[in-house]
Structure formats: structure tokens, C-alpha cells
């Protein structure tokens, strides 16, 4: 039998038994799509969580007031300690050797207004270095000026969304916005960006830290970010900060200093669980896809068995018959699996253009695994019945007998 005849024979099967071809195609493609979409979902969630915690660089230490006594777990996110962390503490820390920059942070919700329009926003009081540490950039205007911590100025940088809501299409730079009983001149508008630690950075107003302290009438800092010169020094500087603040707070160790590594390790369990979940999802959907393919293959067995018997009676050897049916199954499995892969990429592309914060990517092992598994399943379940039918005497097979019996 010539290769061209084999191809033609298979093409006739696939094109003239269209219903069977389409159902098999869809079954295989759905299996591949399911594996890829589900793992992409899991991987997307995982990398989203990782990214959230990666906003801080590896060289950043976060100091918060209050001491968490027990080991492990997240430090308190809110809550005031009896002895607040002050700007003076921040200043002292910024003079430590090895500390590159320090950014204090005061936080509060406040109503801002411009030309009769009122908006409730998240107000952040900080310094110039805050923008570097948190990787924030302005799209228009400039950042907060470099000021000593204890010196204020009535200026603000506002988020993208806030700008468009207060000013619509009017130029915002240079305009005065009222916040509480103070007024601030807009000097910069942040580039459009995502959230970080749950704060929507498009909807914030950032002012010098002293102004925020007087606006909210509180001394204590919510957080203090410190950037160290090199990663190696991270732990020694962490100890130095604790020591320094203890000294300044009359021997009381009442702050918590955490690094990104420490935070990451505290969410490591969650990440591990996510990884297991993704793997579990992938293997379950692969199994489902395999069973789908198996069923489709087995349904066609009795029809196949008769044809195999006939082909043998007409002068085809068992090996030739098996080859024909394997080629047929392999061809449709490969085409269907690849189209499933293509479809899942198209869906992911669409999803990724719709959701900006979270990106879905099916990992390479899921892509490869789903295609290989689909083809292997299809071949296996084409081969088993074909093998059985081919080992029957032609006449028995033509009578549609499925079991190898003696009759």
C-alpha cells in the first residue's frame, strides 16, 4: 500500500464520517483546553500573589509600631502601640550606616474637593523617597520635593483616576484642591498603575508627611520603609534598627521590622498550596480529557471490528490494519490537540487583555502534557480495539464479534 493511498484512505474515513470526526475532534480539543485554562487560572492566581509581595524590592525593610510577640504569621497590619513610631525615629534610622533612604508613611481617609466636586480618597503622607521605594512614577508634573521630614509644603501628587474625576479633561497641574481644612496645589499626577497591598494607587493623594500629620492630628507613623544599600546588610541593619528604636524608646522593644523575604516566607504556605492545587487541577482535567477520548474511541469499536475483518479478508495483513487505524487516530488526535492548544491561547489572550491586574499563562508543562496525553490516550484506545479485532479470524470480526471466542 502506497503512502498516498494510506493518506487517502484515512482522509476518506475522516471526511466521510464527519459526525464521528467532529465529535472526536471536539472531545480531544475540550480536554486540551480544559487542562490549559485551568492551570493558567491557577498559575495566574499564584503569580498575582507573588507579584503583590514583590512590589517592595528585596532591599526594603518595613518598620511598624507595636511588637508582635509570637513567631510566624503576619504582623499586625493596623493598631496603635502605646509608644508611637515618630518622625524623629525615622530621622535617626535614616542616619544609620548602610541605610540608603527612609520613607515614613501616614495614612488616612479624607474628603477632598475641587470646584464643588467631592471625593473621598486615601491620603498618604510621605516623602520623596517613598516614590523610589514603591516604584511610583508621575505621568505629568513632578514628584514631591525633597524636604526634611519635619518640613511641610502645601503640594500634592494625585492618582490618575482621582485626577480625571476631579478635573475631567481640564489641566489639573497647578490647581488647588481642598482637603479637610487645608488646600494643596497639584504638582504631579501618577502614571496609571495597579494596586499594591490592596491600595488602589489610581485613587490616592500623596502629600508631605508633616502636612498629613497635622491634617489627621496624629504623631505616630503608620509605617516606615527603609531601603538598605545592599541585600547582604539587610539582616544586620534590621537588628540595628530594632536596637536604635529600643534605645530611643527607653529600652522598650516595641517595633516590628519585616523584610520582603520574611513576608514571602510567611505566605509560602499559601503559595505551596496553590502549586499543589494547580497540579491537582491539571491532573484531574487531564484524566477527564482522557476518559472523554477513551469513550469516543470505544464507541466506534464494533463498526471498526467489522471493517477490520473485511480488510483482512480482502488481503490486508493484521499489521497493515493496525497501522491504518493508528494513523487515523494519531492524525485526528494531533490536529485536535493542537487546535485545542490554539484555542486556549486565544482565550487566554482575550482574558489577559480584559484583566490587567492578573495575567493568565498556561505553563509549558501543562501545554506539552495536555497535547502528549491527548495523543497517547487516543492512540492507546485506538490501538487496543484494533489490536483485538486484528487478532480475530477475519470472519469472526466481520460478524461483529468483540470477544475472542471459539464459535
Amino acid at each position, binding site marked *: *500500500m*502506497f503512502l*498516498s*493511498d494510506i493518506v487517502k*484512505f484515512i482522509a*476518506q*474515513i475522516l471526511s*466521510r*464520517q464527519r459526525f464521528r470526526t467532529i465529535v472526536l475532534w471536539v472531545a480531544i480539543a475540550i480536554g486540551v483546553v480544559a487542562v490549559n485554562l485551568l492551570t493558567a487560572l491557577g498559575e495566574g492566581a499564584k503569580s498575582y500573589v507573588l507579584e503583590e509581595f514583590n512590589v517592595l524590592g528585596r532591599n526594603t525593610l518595613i518598620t511598624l509600631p507595636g511588637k508582635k510577640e509570637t513567631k510566624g504569621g503576619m504582623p499586625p497590619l493596623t493598631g496603635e502601640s502605646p509608644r508611637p513610631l515618630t518622625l524623629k525615629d525615622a530621622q535617626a534610622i535614616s542616619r544609620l550606616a548602610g541605610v540608603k533612604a527612609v520613607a515614613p508613611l501616614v495614612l488616612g481617609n479624607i474628603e477632598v474637593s475641587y470646584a464643588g466636586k467631592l471625593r473621598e480618597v486615601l491620603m498618604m503622607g510621605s516623602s520623596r523617597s517613598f516614590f523610589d521605594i514603591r516604584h511610583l512614577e508621575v505621568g505629568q508634573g513632578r514628584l514631591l520635593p525633597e524636604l526634611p521630614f519635619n518640613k511641610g509644603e502645601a503640594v500634592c501628587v494625585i492618582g490618575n483616576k482621582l485626577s480625571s474625576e476631579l478635573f475631567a479633561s481640564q489641566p489639573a497641574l497647578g490647581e488647588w484642591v481642598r482637603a479637610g481644612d487645608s488646600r494643596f496645589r497639584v504638582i504631579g499626577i501618577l502614571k496609571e498603575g495597579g494596586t499594591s497591598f490592596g491600595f488602589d494607587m489610581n485613587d490616592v493623594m500623596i502629600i508631605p508627611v508633616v502636612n498629613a500629620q497635622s491634617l489627621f492630628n496624629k504623631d505616630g507613623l503608620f509605617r516606615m520603609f527603609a531601603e538598605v544599600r545592599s541585600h547582604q546588610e539587610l539582616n544586620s541593619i534590621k537588628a540595628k534598627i530594632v536596637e536604635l528604636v529600643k534605645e530611643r524608646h527607653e529600652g522598650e522593644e516595641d517595633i516590628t521590622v519585616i523584610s520582603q523575604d520574611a513576608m514571602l516566607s510567611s505566605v509560602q504556605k499559601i503559595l505551596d498550596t496553590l502549586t499543589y492545587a494547580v497540579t491537582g487541577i491539571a491532573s484531574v482535567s487531564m484524566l477527564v480529557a482522557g476518559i472523554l477520548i477513551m469513550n469516543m474511541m470505544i464507541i466506534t469499536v464494533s463498526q471498526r471490528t*467489522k*471493517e477490520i475483518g*473485511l*480488510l*483482512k*479478508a*480482502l*488481503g*490486508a*495483513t*493484521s*499489521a*497493515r490494519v493496525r497501522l491504518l487505524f493508528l494513523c487515523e487516530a494519531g492524525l485526528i488526535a494531533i490536529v485536535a490537540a493542537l487546535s485545542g492548544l490554539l484555542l486556549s491561547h486565544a482565550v487566554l489572550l482575550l482574558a489577559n487583555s480584559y484583566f490587567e491586574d492578573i495575567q493568565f499563562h498556561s505553563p509549558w508543562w501543562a501545554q506539552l502534557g495536555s497535547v502528549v496525553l491527548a495523543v497517547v490516550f487516543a492512540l492507546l484506545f485506538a490501538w487496543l480495539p484494533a489490536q483485538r479485532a486484528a487478532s480475530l*479470524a*477475519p*470472519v469472526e470480526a*466481520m460478524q461483529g464479534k468483540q470477544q475472542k471466542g*471459539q*464459535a
Partner: protein
Amino acid sequence: MIELSHLEKSFQIGDQTVHALDDVSLTIETGEYVAVMGPSGSGKSTLMNILGLLDRANSGRYLLDDINVSDLTEAERTHVRSQKIGFVFQSYHLVSRLTARENIELPMVLSGIPAKQRTIAVDEILEKLSLVDRAHHSPNQLSGGQRQRVAIGRAIVMKPSILLADEPTGNLDSKSGAEVTALLESLNAEGITLIVVTHDQAMGDRARRQLRMLDGRLT
């Protein structure tokens, strides 16, 4: 020429042993027209399957044109079968997705004969069986008589020396049956050895030689 000597074939059904062929010896000359008759279960189908190399006997010797086919491997038997034997079945066994033409061509495709040669041979057969205007119809667009003619075309396309027909008119009305019988007999007249298994006494009587089987024996 077919020479069978002392063929035995038995099946195990449950704990019973059924002797489908019991010491069968038989010689059929090239070009003969033989009818094999007998009640169901007498072993005629088994004899046909062994003659057609679709099955093998437990013991005994089968010489086909002086080749001892009992000793051949499956692949060799398949080759001999495709070259020397054509089959006609009661229920046609056409491949439903293939056209009449493609069904007739199938044995040549499986034997690896080049397309040009196939076209010539199939054209000739379509002409001979008056199926030219049906060549591109699928089997379910054809009448029973036409289907059996396609099946006969498929059986003779490789120019075999033996044509085995198992109840070839069993599913046909009397008019189509008579046509198919006439066609088979005309092929026999051209020199092919024709062996027909039938229940039909009238058809059996037309053969020049009748073999009767009972309980696995020739009587």
C-alpha cells in the same frame, strides 16, 4: 487446483467439543463449478473459511495450486488470499463510506497496485458488470442486486483463480438473485473456479458438482 486431505477442525463451545470438519478430503479442479450444500451447522461455512484461508484447520493438509498453505505464516496466507481468492458474502460487506468504484478498487489499494493500473482494471470491471453509471454512488444508494454486483466486482478485481460465494443470493429477490447467479456463472465460464455455499436447492442444482455436508462430513 484445490486438494484437501484429512482436514479436521473442532471448536470448544462451553465444555462440548464440536467437530465442524471431520476427516474431510476433497479435490476441486481449476475451473469447476461446485455447490456446497447442507443444513446449518453442518460445517459448510467452516469449510468455506478454510478454503478461503480465513481460518485454518487443526490438522490435515491443504494444497492450493501445489502450495501447502497449511504451513504458511499469517502474512503469507494473506498474500496468497489476495492473489488467488475472491469472496462474495451474503450481506455484501461493502464499506459504506466508499463509493461503488472505491469499494471495487479496495483490494488493489491494499495490495499496493499503482493508481494507473487500478483505474484501468476498475473501469473494465464496471463496464463488465454494467455499473458504469453507478460508479460514484455509495452502497446505500444502490439496490441489493447492485450491491452484490459491486461485491462481486471487488472479489474479481485482483483476477483470482477461485471465487468463494457464501449464500450470494440469500438477501436478494428472485429477479436480482437470478441476475447475480447468471453473473457468477458467466465468470465461471471464463475459467474461474466457482464454489458456492447455499441452502437453495435450485441454485445448488445448477452447479456441475454438488457436495453435501452433514455433521462435518462430506456425504
